[in-house]
């Protein structure tokens, strides 16, 4: 893991210096997805999510997610969104100058979602509101955060 981190960082530096041409090169030279997704020029950072419901097999309407950023020791709400089109959001959560290095939280209102769809679950539900926390450490990179969820489990990762 450490070695690939170093490779990745070097590649980002190269990408920033040489501009978009490097991105094209990365796409055509068989670089791994994990590497090519990191290539971004200044101001091209973006934060997106994909909430994937593994209970129904497809994310339904009515999933509310609150995006917050840690400021002064507290997560402060930036915006609240409802997912559309199978768990994506209509717009990126953050892009351009709004992308700032920091610690973020996506609060998933799973209790309201599964109640809305009348899922047969115990009270209180095993999972109610789920806090997905992650660090955004480079404002010029694209951060895509897929979240797989059910009433009994969740998983998230840095996607591409």
């Amino acid at each position, binding site marked *: 893991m450490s070695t690939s981190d170093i490779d990745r960082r070097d590649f980002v530096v190269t990408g920033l210096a040489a501009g978009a041409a490097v991105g094209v090169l990365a796409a055509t030279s068989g670089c791994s997805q994990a590497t090519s997704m990191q290539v971004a020029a200044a101001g091209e950072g973006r934060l997106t999510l994909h909430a994937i419901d593994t209970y129904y097999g497809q994310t339904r309407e009515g999933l509310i997610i609150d995006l917050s950023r840690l400021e002064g020791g507290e997560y402060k709400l930036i915006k609240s969104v409802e997912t559309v089109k199978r768990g994506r959001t209509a717009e990126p959560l953050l892009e351009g100058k709004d992308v700032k*290095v920091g610690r973020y939280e996506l609060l998933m209102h799973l209790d309201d979602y599964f109640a809305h769809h009348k899922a047969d679950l*115990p009270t209180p539900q095993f999972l109610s509101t789920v806090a997905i926390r*992650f660090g955004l450490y480079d404002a010029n990179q694209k951060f895509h955060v897929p979240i797989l969820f059910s009433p009994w489990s969740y998983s998230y*990762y840095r996607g591409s």
Partner: protein
Amino acid sequence: MAGITTHVLDNEAGSPGAGMRIDFSVWENGAFKFVRTVHTNNDGRTDGMILKPPDTKVGRYELKFYVAEYYAKQGMDLPDPPFVETVPVRFSVFDTKQHYHVPMLCTPWTCTTYRGS
């Protein structure tokens, strides 16, 4: 067996996550109240149960896993701030006669939790 237990699996190393700090809290009067800190043993589990059956009540609990601290201790070069840092897993006990096993599967870039057995 009832009560609350956990198990940390380091999916980066492919081994149990030994020595990871976990803060255990209970939801009381609208906030999580810190109860105690535990560390995982060599098997990635805790020496005692997180919460024994007689102490387990219907309600909401939090296990906060210090994932980045765990990887940093092993000399891993993590970004600042790390992508996965401290992971608060919040869940509810809805039947005190049942066992709640809540594992944490992690790498510096992913984490997964679920109701196990």
